[in-house]
Every structure is written in structure tokens, then in C-alpha cells.
């Protein structure tokens, strides 16, 4: 039963994608959306079914299905094989359910677009690729999905290809992730040559049994981490994600919530045993996560584009997840991934609806006062914002973030050489990040929804779009109760499900730790209210580059076009561009061309020389002849005396010759 259902999960969206692409231009636009939604919905139903089967009777070992042998090499088998364990199960649930809601939403959202077939084809392919990624039991097979999501993100970000900026953003996303992919591929090659297999379970056994020496293992971990960082838009690869807002809003929701960026988290969680064996890499991961979450939160605080704020918030939340992964509590990372998927999808879809209502205006300072016009959207956005900020007790985000924070507090991060980084430092930084998170998301909320209306609001949000919003709001609020801190209630359903054999060590956390985590968002909310939300807000106008509260937080000018990706651009794209400029000419080609041209010129020259030489000689001969004849002619001038003189001269000469001889 499960053996049959598992491939079907992937097959349904894949088939929809193939049908949609093959039907290019034939299938009526109205049918493309429902078809895709139905396929993803089918997939979601199957996943739910699988979840019921698996959870009702937890099997001792993961369910494995080998579809076929991909390549067989001496000492290296590669298979197309799926495996279902709780981790995969969680992922496919998130991907299919959130994906389904997003598709549902997109039916109406993309109704008027002429190219819905391509859109939904790419979307379903995206889901299919992500499912392949999370289901594969073989890293090489995982790589298919890994590249597949990159490809689909490129297709979708550049969906509106008539604007070159969109395709440029799409290419940037693909190239940066592709750079990470190359690193990942190198890591896979290293693993494959070391262990002779890329099957995940065999691989992890090899790691635990110490089959790989530490140095290659660290190299593998670093390479895999690079791939994951690029896919999840962490420092230094973060610049592609905000640009990816160029795509349609459902795409953004899909990329940020369900697919694409979670792939990196999933990979590391999947290989957590391998990473656990390399503590230095873990520390690096945690540090990068912390830095990213702070940096992205600061960026989000100064953006004016609604979608960009959300994009940076995604980078920031992914930073939390990497922090959790670096700490070693991958369950917490996945818990946050799940709640994040709910509220981020909610936020994006709401944002899309808002933007549609205000005539595609994306600058938050041109909105305002939307609360009265769109109370439903405001409620949805507030729910999402609250979950993102992690307002205590009532939101899912609180529980997941709290789990991460409390674990970080207790962890230590070995740096190497006996030194270790205390978890307290990272905890305080992460807490500051949480504060900033609340600040920026409620800044956004207050600016958009309160205050005087700045723009005309038109139309209504269709019911088909509100249903997903409602579902996601519910999930954002209640999704967190599956796992609670011990201080509140000992509910550990989530972590138990993920890893029944190794439950998280729940030491007695001090109560103030929880309190700090709970109070920080509230403090942030209060500050945001003071600054932007109250009747007499401190800051109301669109931020201009003047010294003020904003200048404290960012050293650069505050513009919506501000590109925090400058450093990675300089790192990756500029050298490529320079190389491109250098490579405008094919050097050997030039060389052979110039040689041939030189030969040609030389032969021409030789021919010319020859011709001119001959011409010169002939003309000279001609002249000598002519002059000689003239001379002779002058001798024959008919003057007797001259003849006599010539005779005498000849006589002289003859005599002289005779005598000298």
C-alpha cells in the first residue's frame, strides 16, 4: 500500500506539470489552475493518508522503495529510491498541504494572466521536485530534486519575462544557488569516492562507524553546508532571495514557505549525524545562522517594499533554523520550519491580496489605513505577524522559537583548539533578533493598516483566495501546540514523532529564560506601537535619508532599492562579469585568425614585391633601351664631323685596347 502511494505522491504533480507543459497554449487558461491544484491536492491527500498509516502504526524502519537502478558502476551503485521516515513525512506534509493552499489561492490570483499553463506547470513541477528532494533515500537522487527546485525557481521568478529585471533576478537566483549546487556536487563526489555509496542510511552508518577520516569529513561537511547555505539564502549567498520577489506572489509564497529555501534545512537535518561528527562546521553553521538572522532583521527594518520585508524576514527566520541546526537540535529547526511555513505562506498570500487591492502598489508608505477597508486581510496579516514575532502562548511561532532559544542557551560551540563559544552569546544575539523581528513586522503592519489611507482601495478579495488565508491563519495560531516547553506543559509530540529513539534532552530550563523569550516580542510590539502605531506616531512619513531612528540601525541610505547583496555580488557576479568581458574573444581563434591574416598579408606582400620588382626591372630595361637608342640616335645625327669623331674615338679605343693587351 505505502509502496504504491509513495511514488504516487511525486507522480501526481509531475504528471500535472508534464500535461501542462505539453498542452502549451491549448489548454484553456481556466482549466490549468484547477488541474494543477487538483494534482497537488491529490498529493496532499496521499501524504495525509501516508501520515495516518505511518503514525497509526509506527514501523521500526523507514519504508524504502527502490524504483530502479539509476547507474551501476563498479563500487558505486546509484538508485532512484524513495524512503519514508518521520522527517520525510513531515516535509511532504508541509510541502503538499501548504503547496495545495498556495495553488488554491493562485487559481484566482493568476486568473487574468495569459500564460497560466506555464505558471501552473512550473508550480507543480516545483512541488514535484521538492517532493523528490525530501523523499529520496539516495543523495544523488536528492540532487535531482535539488537542481529541480532551482530550475523551477528560475522559471517562476522570471515568469513575467517581459521585464528584463525579472529575468535578471531569476538568473541571479539560479546562478547563486547553482554555485552552491556545484559545491554540493563536489561534496557528493568526495563522499561517493570515500564510501562508495550515496545511499543515505549506508552513508550515515559509514560516518558513525568512523569509516571516513576527519579531514575529508570536514571537507564534505563544509561543501554540503555551502550547498545548503546557497539554497537557503544565508550569508554570504543571501542576495538572491529578496530579488526573487520579482515573481508572482504565490511563487514567493511557495519558495519561502514550502519549497526551495527549506531544502537546505532539510539536507542538514537529514545528514545531522554527519554534521554532528564535525563540531567545527556545526559552530560555523550556528554563527552564520546568527549573523544572518541579525543582518536580515536589520535589513527588513529599513525596507519599504512589502514583499521585500517579508523576504528578509524569511532570511532571518532561516537564520534561526541554521542556528538550531548548528546547535544540534535539528528537531527544533524542523519545528520552526513547519510553523514558519504556515505563517510565512499566510503573510505572503495576504500581502499578495493586499497588493492586488491597492492596484499593485508595493511600497508600504503608499498604503496605510487599510484596517477599515480590509478587516479580514488585516486580521490575517496580524495573525501572521504575531506568529512571526512569536507573541507568547497564542501563536505557533512562539513555541518553535522558544525551543530554539532555550536550547541555544545551554549549548556550547567548540571552536577548535580547546576553545568554545558559549551559547549565551548566541542566545542574546538571537534574542535581539527576535526583538528586531517584532519591531520590523509590526512596523510594517502599523504603516500598512493604521493611519490615514494613502491610496484608493478597490475590489474585494475573492472567496477562493480567502479560504487558504483562513486555513493558514488557523495553522499559524495552533500549529505550535504540538510541542511545548516543559515549563508550560510537557507536550513533546513533535520531537517524539521525528526521532522516537532520541528525544531531546529536556533539562530544567530556568523560568526566566522562558519569560525573556516571551517578553521580548511584547517589548518589540510596544516599541513598534510607540514608533509607528499610536495615534501620534513618532515616525510617520516615508523614511528619508536623515539621521534618526533608522540611521542607528543601518549605516547606509534607506531606500527600497538598497541592495544588501552588494558583497556577494562583488564576490560572485562581478568576477564572472569581468571574465565575460575578457572572454569576448576566443583567443586561439583570434590567434589562428591573425596568423592566417598575417600569412595572407605576407603572400600579398610577396606578390606585390615580385610584381613591383618585375615591373621595375622591365621599366628599367625599357628605359635603358630607350635611352640607349636615344644615345645611338643622337650619334646618328647626320653630322659628318660627329661621325668622324666617333670613328676617331673608336680608333683610339681599339688602339688603346690593342696596346694594353
Amino acid at each position, binding site marked *: 500500500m505505502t509502496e504504491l502511494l509513495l511514488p504516487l505522491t511525486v507522480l501526481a504533480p509531475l504528471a500535472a506539470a508534464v500535461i501542462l507543459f505539453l498542452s*502549451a*497554449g491549448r489548454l484553456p487558461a481556466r482549466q490549468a489552475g484547477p488541474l494543477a491544484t487538483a494534482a497537488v491536492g491529490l498529493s496532499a491527500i496521499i501524504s495525509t493518508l501516508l501520515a495516518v498509516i505511518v503514525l497509526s502504526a509506527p514501523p521500526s524502519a523507514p519504508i524504502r522503495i527502490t524504483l530502479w537502478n*539509476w547507474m551501476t*558502476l563498479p563500487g558505486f551503485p546509484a538508485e532512484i529510491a524513495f524512503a519514508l521516515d518521520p522527517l520525510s513525512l513531515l516535509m511532504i506534509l508541509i510541502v503538499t498541504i501548504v503547496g495545495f493552499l498556495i495553488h488554491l489561492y493562485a487559481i484566482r490570483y493568476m486568473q487574468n494572466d495569459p500564460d497560466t499553463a506555464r505558471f501552473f506547470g512550473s508550480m507543480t513541477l516545483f512541488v514535484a521536485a521538492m517532493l523528490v528532494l525530501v523523499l529520496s533515500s539516495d543523495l544523488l537522487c536528492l540532487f535531482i530534486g*535539488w537542481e529541480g527546485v532551482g530550475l523551477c525557481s528560475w522559471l517562476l521568478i522570471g515568469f513575467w519575462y517581459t521585464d528584463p529585471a525579472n529575468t535578471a533576478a531569476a538568473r541571479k537566483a539560479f546562478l547563486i544557488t547553482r554555485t552552491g549546487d556545484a559545491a554540493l556536487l*563536489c561534496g557528493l563526489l568526495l563522499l*561517493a569516492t570515500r564510501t562508495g555509496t550515496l545511499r543515505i542510511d549506508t552513508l550515515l552508518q559509514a560516518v558513525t562507524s568512523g569509516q571516513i577520516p576527519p579531514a575529508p569529513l570536514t571537507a564534505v561537511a563544509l561543501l554540503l553546508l555551502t550547498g545548503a547555505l546557497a539554497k537557503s539564502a544565508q550569508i554570504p549567498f543571501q542576495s538572491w532571495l529578496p530579488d526573487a520577489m520579482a515573481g508572482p506572489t504565490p511563487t514567493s509564497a511557495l519558495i519561502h514557505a514550502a519549497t526551495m529555501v527549506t531544502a537546505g534545512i532539510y539536507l542538514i537535518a537529514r545528514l545531522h549525524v554527519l554534521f554532528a561528527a564535525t563540531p567545527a562546521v556545526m559552530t560555523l553553521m550556528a554563527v552564520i545562522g546568527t549573523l544572518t538572522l541579525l543582518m536580515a532583521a536589520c535589513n527588513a527594518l529599513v525596507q519599504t517594499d512589502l514583499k521585500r520585508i517579508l523576504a528578509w524576514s524569511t532570511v532571518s527566520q532561516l537564520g534561526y533554523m541554521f542556528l538550531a541546526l548548528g546547535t544540534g537540535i535539528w528537531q527544533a529547526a524542523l519545528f520552526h520550519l513547519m510553523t514558519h511555513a504556515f505563517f510565512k505562506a499566510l503573510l505572503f498570500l495576504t500581502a499578495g491580496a493586499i497588493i492586488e487591492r491597492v492596484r499593485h502598489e508595493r511600497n508600504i508608505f503608499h498604503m496605510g489605513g487599510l484596517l477599515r477597508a480590509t478587516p479580514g486581510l488585516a486580521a490575517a496579516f496580524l495573525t501572521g505577524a504575531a506568529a512571526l514575532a512569536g507573541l507568547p502562548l497564542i501563536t505557533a511561532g512562539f513555541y518553535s522559537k522558544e525551543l530554539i532559544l532555550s536550547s541555544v542557551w545551554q549549548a556550547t560551540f567548540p571552536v577548535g583548539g580547546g576553545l568554545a563559544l558559549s551559547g549565551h552569546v548566541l542566545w542574546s544575539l538571537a534574542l535581539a533578533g527576535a526583538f528586531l523581528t517584532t519591531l520590523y513586522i509590526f512596523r510594517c503592519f502599523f504603516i500598512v493598516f493604521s493611519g490615514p489611507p494613502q491610496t484608493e482601495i478597490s475590489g474585494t478579495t475573492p472567496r477562493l483566495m480567502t479560504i487558504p488565508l483562513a486555513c493558514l491563519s488557523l495553522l499559524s495560531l495552533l500549529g505550535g501546540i504540538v510541542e511545548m516547553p516543559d515549563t508550560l506543559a510537557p507536550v513533546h509530540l513533535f520531537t517524539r514523532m521525528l526521532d522516537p529513539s532520541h528525544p531531546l534532552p529536556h533539562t530544567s530550563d530556568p523560568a526566566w529564560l522562558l519569560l525573556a523569550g516571551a517578553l521580548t516580542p511584547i517589548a518589540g510590539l510596544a516599541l513598534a506601537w510607540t514608533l509607528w502605531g499610536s495615534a501620534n506616531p513618532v515616525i510617520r512619513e516615508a523614511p528619508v535619508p536623515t539621521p534618526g531612528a533608522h540611521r542607528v540601525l543601518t549605516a547606509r541610505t534607506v531606500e527600497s532599492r538598497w541592495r544588501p547583496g552588494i558583497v556577494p555580488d562583488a564576490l560572485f557576479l562581478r568576477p564572472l562579469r569581468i571574465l565575460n568581458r575578457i572572454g569576448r574573444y576566443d583567443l586561439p581563434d583570434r*590567434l589562428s585568425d591573425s596568423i592566417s591574416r598575417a600569412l595572407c598579408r605576407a603572400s600579398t606582400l610577396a606578390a606585390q614585391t615580385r610584381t613591383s620588382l618585375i615591373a621595375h626591372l622591365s621599366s628599367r630595361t625599357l628605359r635603358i633601351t630607350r635611352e640607349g637608342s636615344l644615345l645611338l640616335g643622337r650619334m646618328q645625327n647626320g653630322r659628318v664631323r660627329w661621325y668622324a669623331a666617333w670613328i676617331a674615338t673608336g680608333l683610339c679605343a681599339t688602339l688603346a685596347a690593342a696596346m694594353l693587351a
Partner: protein
Amino acid sequence: MTPLPALVLLPVLGGAIAWLADRSRTRPEQPPPVAWLITLITLILETALLLAETFRQSPDPGPWLDHFSRPWIPPLGIDVRLDMDGLSLSLLWLTLILSLPCVLLATRQIRTRPGLFHFLFLATISGVTGTFLATDLFLFFFFWELMLVPMFVLILIWGHEDRHRAAMKFFLFTQGSGLLLLLSILGLAITHFRETGFLTFNYFTLAATPLSPALSMVLMLGFFIPFAVKLPVIPVHVWLPDAHTQAPTAASVLLAGILLKTGGYGMIRFNIMLFPEAAAHFAPVALSLGVAGILYGAWMSCQQNDIKRLIAYSSISHLGFVLTGIFSGSQAGMQGAIIQMLAHGLSTGALFLIAGSLQDRMHTRDMTRIGGLWATMPRLSGAGVFFAVASLGMPGLGNFAGEFLVLFATWRVSPPLAILAATGLVLAAIYALKLVNGIFLAPAAPAPSPTKDVPTPQIAILGSLMIFLVILGLYPRPFIAASAPSPPSVVTGKGEPNHAHP
């Protein structure tokens, strides 16, 4: 009765008939395209023949599938010797799979002297077939030259604006290196004559020639350079972009899809099999050249604005993988190289077909002047995106399978080279995306877009190529198993040289 000689002779005979039929036509302006029809029939017959050959019971149990041998010039020890192993068979299939779409899609539009065109086209195919089958070195050289001359004429007469220069370049490079090949063949045969006292050009006999290491290296290089020119390897690749760009569509497809493969085939069959030790010594250089080709081709490709030129440079990049795989010294690399050859033939051939049909419709190859094709021709654009994506090495498609195997084999030899080659994949993404975002998913451009998409049958042909690529990418195992080259030492049965004792 073995059908091997028929396989070789059928295309050129069909071509001759096509030519004559076209000449005897009274009103040349009016289609029916007699030559085209005859060509099509010829190719279908050839396919049937190859089918029969594929499923024929092998006459002897060895890895060689079929033999054919007749004396040709006995005093010099030259035979007409054709042998087929898995490698030849798979490359022959590639030849047919590519030439059929070529004829179906690209050659019907030929208006100037269609008879001659089809004759030359089929003559090239004959030459290629012969090259893949010949195991007498002299005969091999004969076919090697045979496939070159018609291609030269094809470029010279039916090419695009700068065809004369391109054709001359092509001819000079390949002909010049062909001379080296002849010298090496003679050198090997004469060495064998000195050692054993009888003159032969038989591949299997010559494989057993005892050679000093230095001589072996010299001869190996003598074989390597012409194959490297054909493949092409980076410093001697300069003929390729021009030839591919200027050739007519069908010739571009033949060049990229099949003719380049003769280089790879030659390297496997002659360099690796005849001189294993010398090849192993030479491997570091060849690997470096291959990786340099990968990076350089991709880099150059990123810079092009001419569609066909971009594809041509991407070929250099892809064939760098082939070279790297061949010289990586392991079976995995060899298999990867073969898979890469097949996949590259399909993907690049299809891209050239698409570029050719675009040029037919829009009369330009300049990417800056083409754009927004998806809106008007979504099916062709979809195919274009698919093949571009295949060409950037998307896992699950044929190219990735080959590239992965090559990288895998290379990593065992030298991880830094493998990392560099993997960097080539990033560059591949750049040029492939540039191609797609330059013409298909791009803002509308000055050149007027055609209003009609290509008809369904043509898309179906491209679709079949896509299916081949997907199968090659997802299930390459049977191909890997079937296309393994056979070593020269295990030949048995009636193919054994019988003139060894004069």
C-alpha cells in the same frame, strides 16, 4: 551474410540515386522534393537494417557483435574490414536518430540544388558509419576523409554569410590533422612490419605490436591530435565555432551531433585501446586539456550573442567532459564519456535544429534581435527551454548522467580537476540561461516574431528526442551496458586475420 557493408554503402547509394533523380527532373522549381523523399526512404531502410543488425544473433560469443572482412589491396595488407561492438552500435543509432529529424525538419526547405545537397548529406552519413565500423586502419582513414569532404562542400555551398572562410578553416584544420593520422597509421603499420615481417593494417593485429615507450607515445600523440581537432580539444577548437555557425542547419546538426563524436570514438578505439600505457602517461595532460576545454568553452559561450555560436561553444564545453572521461583511466569515466557523447548529440543536435528553424523564420541569429518567442510559439520555446536545460546539466536528463560519471571518475584521479570541472557546470548554467532568457523568455525584440508556431509533427520529432534524453538521464544503465567498447585483444571466430600467413 552480415549487413555491415550494406550499412555503410546504403546511404551513399541512396544519395547517388537522389542526385540522379533530382537531375532528371524536368521542372526544377516545382516540388515534389524527389531528392528529399529518396533520402527519407534511404534513411528508413538504413534504420531497418540497423534494427535487423541490432537484434541479429551474434555469430560468435565474443563481445564483438559482428564481423566482415574481404581483401582489398592484398599486396599492402589492406582489407575491407568492418567490425561492430557496442560502442559502434550505440553511435550508429545516434547517427540515425539525429539524421532522421534532420531530414524531416531541416532539409526539405533546401531550394538550391537539393539533389546534390542530399547526396552530400548521405555521403557524410556513409563516411561516419564507415568510420564507426572500420577496423582496418587504412579503411578507417579512408572513411575519415570521406566524411570530411562532403561536409566541406555542404558548408561551402549552403552555408550562411561567412561560409567560405568557415569552410576553409574547417577543411584546413581537419585535413591537416588527417595527414598526421595517416602518418601515424603508416608508422604503426611499418613498425609492425619491421617486427614481424608482414604488412597489415588490421586493427587487431596491430594492437599486439610491441612498441618501445617513446615510439608508443609518439604514435599515440599522432593519433591523439587529429582526434583532438575533431573532438575538439581546446587549443585546436578554432574551426568549430565558425563551421557550426556558418553551416546550414542540417550540416550543423550532423557536425555537432555526430562528426564530433568520431573524435571521441577514435580516442577510445585507438588511443586508449592501442596504446594503453602511453595513454596513461599522457592522461594528466589530457585531463587538464579536457577541464580547460570545459571551462573555456563555457566561458566563451557565455559571451556570444549569436545563437548558433553560443551552442557551438557549449559543445566545446561538453566535449571537454568527454575528453576528461576518456582519459580518466577508469571504466566509469569511459562510460560517462560515452553517455555524454550520446546526450550531447541529442541535446545539441536538437538545439541546432531549433536555432535553424528560428533562423528560417526570423532570418537572424542575433539574440539581441530575437525575443519574446514564448508568447507566439510556446511549443518550440518549450522545446528550446528543455534542451537548454538539458545542456546545462540538469540531473535527470542525459547530460547530467554523463557529466556525473565523468566527474566521479575524475575525482578519483584528481579532486582539484574535478572541482574545476564542476565549476564548469555553473558556467553552463550561465550560458544556458542566457540562451533561454535571450530568446524564449525574453522581452519582445525588434525582429518580427513569427505568428505561427511550428506544426505538431515537428514538435513530435523534437519530443521524441526529449524522451530519449529523459530515458538516457533517468535510466542510462542499459546504454552503459550496451555501449561498452570491446577491447581489441579478445576478437575470435571468423574475423581473425586469415592473411597472417601468406
